[in-house]
């Protein structure tokens, strides 16, 4: 077995993977070093250092942060939270609303842009 990502938090040194099945329900906050698969109901906020996949008839109400990728399946729903992800896939048919921020997970202080010298266009001398 070759590890596909540098996450090693599980008992066997492999990346963790948590599955919430269709009959599972979570209320509160969850942080996981690894991947998360939700096909149950979540009321609260989720954060994973790997991927988060909301599939089947999974329903999530709350903030979602995935350091890598978030997938919302065609029958799944994600409502009302702040969504911070590096990559995002929303399948046709999914219910999806919230504030989406993509790009680097923790944007540091904005780098000042190099100031480009403004080009001064010299008006040509008019000839009569």
């Amino acid at each position, binding site marked *: 077995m070759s590890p596909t990502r540098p996450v090693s938090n599980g008992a066997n040194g492999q990346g963790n993977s948590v599955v919430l099945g269709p009959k599972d329900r979570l209320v509160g906050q969850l942080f996981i070093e690894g991947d998360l698969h939700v096909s149950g109901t979540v009321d609260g906020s989720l954060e994973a250092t790997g991927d988060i996949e909301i599939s089947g008839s999974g329903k999530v109400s709350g903030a979602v942060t995935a350091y890598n*990728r978030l997938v919302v399946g065609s029958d799944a729903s994600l409502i009302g939270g702040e969504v911070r992800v590096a*990559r*995002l*896939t*929303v*399948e*046709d*048919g*999914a*219910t*999806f*609303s*919230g*504030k*989406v*921020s*993509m*790009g680097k997970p923790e944007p540091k202080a904005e780098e000042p842009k190099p100031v480009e010298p403004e080009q001064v266009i010299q008006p040509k001398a008019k000839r009569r």
Partner: protein
Amino acid sequence: METQEAVAEGTASAENGEIKRDGRKQFSMGPQDIFEGKLIYDGSIHADGKVEGEVRVSGNIDVASSASVRALLEGANVTLKGQVEGAVTARDKLTLGKNAKLSGDIVVRRLQIDDGATLNGHVRMGDFESHTSGQ
């Protein structure tokens, strides 16, 4: 260097870019075209080149991968493959292709985001007021 650009200011008359397809009007732009202003159009638009302002159509909006759009967009089906800055309303479906970059709030009935697309903004799904009155 002198460059000649076709600039449509204000309300566009769709003389050059208009093609009829399947009996529906299509406003078609090329990669060198520039549109600035407000367009309310009974038909569909294929946007390429540079678009700035406001575009409301009764049909579909399709933004090409080489396009750069800074505008408010409203259409039935909206498909983005290029760069868009501005609010987007899709009365039916919004599709973000894998190279699409969208910064702006969106209101949609259905949403599809392909892996690779970039989105920054609020997403609202469901009912919304329409401003296109079919004229």
